[in-house]
């Protein structure tokens, strides 16, 4: 890339998106550290260092993807989608099973979670399919084909099982179909059909899967684990008050009432809310709102449908995670293992989110001239 192109790129970059993203990543590292803090003089585990590495890697991925023309990504979408499906199949064969779920492929220096990659793969495939000039989104078969594209990874992730991640594919598909212009009456019918199909699908499942869904739907069915965590998370959030207890001073986490296995990933928002109070918790939510606004702005100024759908898709994935995670933290929703984008400890999802935001940036940089 020559110098003028670089200047052009930098001039058109969405600095707001970059800023919000950087602040969230920094907050993430700080609170992963805080979540593993046990008190003065007690060694902190090294998760936060890994998180720094993942954050730097993620920012790198973000910048590289931003430079790539998303049309090229569109053209590769079937390949990427296919690779994601292959990885999902692979994880079922060689994946590592932890607490009953086979979600990870162990590599020598880190683990990857193919279901995270599959989210992007599915997004790319759907966006590409729905934006093809030959696709008329008012046709029912188009909707059916889109459904098949989403259903395959959904099924593969579902049987891992990783219901939370699989479930994210549902709003993703729905929002893409909505923005792609599928008539509202078809979408409504699909919604109703989906609701009716739920009990049917439930019957098909094995007992242990049914149990998981029971737990998913109703925390009381496993009160010892989920009820406890929910209660402790609520106490942490509630006792944070308006301005919080101060960094590293959240007692719920330090004393171990908030289970340590989840404090730095699924329940990191609980740590943030306890230590920074309502002010900090609202600020984090505002940063996500800023990211959503940036993504939708990219969608609105996009020069074509592919860019619009990609941006809306990324926004939907981020929104789904943020909403479900925070609602779970404050006891509004059952506990599912959905991490908080950019903040929760974890590498695959960090890189995938950065990649998605890179696509949004790529769309924004190549926006229509007005």
């Amino acid at each position, binding site marked *: 890339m020559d110098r003028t192109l670089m200047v052009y790129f930098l001039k058109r970059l969405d600095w707001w998106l970059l800023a919000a993203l950087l602040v969230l990543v920094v907050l993430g590292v700080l609170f992963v550290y805080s979540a593993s803090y046990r*008190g003065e003089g007690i060694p902190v585990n090294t998760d936060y260092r890994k998180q720094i590495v993942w954050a730097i890697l993620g920012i790198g991925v973000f910048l590289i993807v931003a430079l790539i023309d998303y049309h090229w990504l569109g053209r590769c979408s079937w390949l990427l989608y296919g690779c994601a499906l292959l990885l999902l199949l692979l994880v079922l064969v060689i994946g590592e099973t932890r607490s009953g779920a086979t979600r990870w492929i162990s590599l020598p220096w880190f683990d990857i979670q193919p279901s995270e990659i599959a989210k992007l793969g599915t997004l790319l495939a759907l966006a590409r399919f729905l934006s093809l000039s030959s696709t008329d989104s008012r046709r029912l078969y188009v909707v059916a084909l889109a459904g098949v594209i989403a259903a395959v990874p959904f099924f593969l992730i579902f049987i891992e099982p990783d219901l939370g991640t699989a479930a994210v594919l549902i709003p993703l598909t729905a*929002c893409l179909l*909505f*923005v*792609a*212009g599928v008539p509202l009456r078809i979408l409504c019918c699909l919604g109703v059909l989906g609701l009716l199909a739920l009990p049917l699908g439930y019957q098909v499942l094995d007992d242990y899967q049914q149990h998981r869904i029971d737990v998913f739907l109703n925390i009381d069915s496993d009160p010892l684990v989920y009820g406890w965590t929910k209660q402790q998370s*609520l*106490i942490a*959030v*509630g*006792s*944070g*008050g*308006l301005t919080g207890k101060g960094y590293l001073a959240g*007692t*719920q986490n*330090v*004393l*171990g*009432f908030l289970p340590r296995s989840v404090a730095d990933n699924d329940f990191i928002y609980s740590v943030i*809310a306890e230590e920074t*109070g*309502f002010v900090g*918790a*609202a600020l984090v*939510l505002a940063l*996500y*709102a800023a990211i*959503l*606004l940036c993504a*939708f702005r990219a*969608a*609105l100024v996009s020069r074509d*449908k592919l860019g*619009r759908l990609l941006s*809306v898709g990324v*926004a*939907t994935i981020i*929104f789904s995670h*943020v*909403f479900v995670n*925070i*609602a779970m933290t*404050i006891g*509004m929703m059952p506990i599912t293992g959905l991490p908080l984008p950019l903040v929760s400890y974890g590498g695959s999802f960090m890189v995938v989110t950065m990649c998605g935001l890179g696509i949004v940036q790529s769309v924004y940089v190549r926006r229509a001239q007005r």
Partner: protein
Amino acid sequence: MIGSRREKVASDVVRARALLALMLLAFGVLIVSLYNIQVASTSKYEIALDRQSMRWIRMPGMRGQILDRNGKIFADNRPSYNVAIFLEELRLVKAKVSETFEKLRPVVGYPATAGEKEVNDHVLNLKPLPLMAWRDLDEAALARFAEQCSMFSGVDIQVEAVREYPQGALASHVIGYVGRTNMLHDAQRPFHFYTDEMIGKSGIERRFDDVLRGQAGGRLMRVDVEGFHREDIVVELPKPGSDVQLAIDVTIQQAVEEELQDAVGSAVIVDPRNGDILAMASSPSFDPNIIVPFITTESWNVILQNPDHPLLNRAIQGSYTPGSIVKPIVALAGLENGKLDPGHVVHCPGYFMLGSHKFGCWLTYGHGDMNLANAIQSSCNVYFFTAGLAMGEEYIVHMAHAVGLGRQAGIEIGGERAGLVPDAAWKRERLDESWWDGDTCNLSIGQGPITVTPLQMALVTAAIANGGTLYRPRLVQGIRAPGGQTFSEQPATVANRLDWSDASLGIVRQAMLNTVMSARGTGRNAAVPGVAIAGKTGTAEFGPKALGKKRGWMIAFAPFDEPRYAVAMVLDHAATGGGADVGPRLQRIFGKLFQVTVSEAPPEAGHG
């Protein structure tokens, strides 16, 4: 076509905007919920947080001292060095506790004092507190442990205050002892944990527990999810207790206890000028140091199974038939009511016939002609039978009540027996029999159902000595607040003022003086050269007549003109009687009180 395409794009834009609006609305819902939880109901969650992670621990205050009237220490605190295991540092579960015990065992050199049950209870219920594995290390073990203690993490020496009684068994019935408790519930503040605390179980320790114990402090600590101690939030230091000063004089108490060492009995010395208890002894006694801080079941059984009941404080809990020591009271009853002419002479042939019933005098061949003074000095029963019948039992009962017999004297340590002064009403109610002259005869010489305590008799003696003031016993002389210099004086209180005329009291006192000082007096064995001592002996029969069991009594006061000591002493099993068995003991006690060396002359046989 182009138009429709534009329309399409426009519809995409509208839909995207609608979607964004929906997402932001959802975020708005989250913000409102967060506000409700974090700002509107903070206190609810703060309370829940504190409830699960805050613990109040009660910390006992240091017990005050118990001192004698000259500041000699009866009860004190000494440091006890304990091996404490801090569970939060070791993160120990029960199995690992015993492992640590095994490792420490060779260092200390003897098995842990904490039993298996105590350890289990502690790990279950008292996790944030250190576990005292070995209490009260001896010096050698302490030295060994101090050398090697750096090898063990989470194990340290902790110092605890333990009650100690430097005077040993001296006045143990008065001082009492303490016992461990861990359940002192505080109505004002519900504590989560109670550390071992000492409360008084008997004597002064028990009755003055509130004064001695001080004010407990508290420690507010944070515990983690497993219940281990994390940090202290607030430490409220306990306030030490007040010191209690007794009227007892260690030197006098020692003198008295020495005279009771080989016998079962009791003695009380009262200051006739104010009712101060200078000595109160009961034999056999016990050493409270073997009860505190803990006593083995065997040692406890040894005490409980002793037929002479060492825990019994005979000075206030022994009901004794008084025998002839009531004669001065009978005499005063007659004189004060004009029913007894001190010059009137009664002939004693050695017995007294009441109808067909024969009441004997102790001198079987008879005292001959007796006036009141002689009758007291020689303790003639026949004279008192006659005098008693002449005045009637009501005057005797009235006077006995007036000098405090038949009711508790009101000593601070409580637990007193009232004794008994029988009268017609009592006999009718108790035995459904009417009073007859034989009862009056018995009452006149202190036999029959009448019982008294040594304390009561010491107070009566003091009243005769001081001219008719019956004091309430004063055992506690003062109380000193922690850190204070002076004791707040407890005022002497008068129980009753007896308006005895100088004439009547003079006759009785003179007769009592003669009892000790005259060569023919029954109390002559108690005489000390150079000291005017007045007294009265008594020998009371008890139990089946055939066994011939006798209590030996003597009451005395000295010096005669300005009395400073009033004594009552009783022996449960007297070989001969008050004069022979108690007299010499009192002589030695008076010898020490007045610093007169008394030559050890064999006691003369005689009756009281």
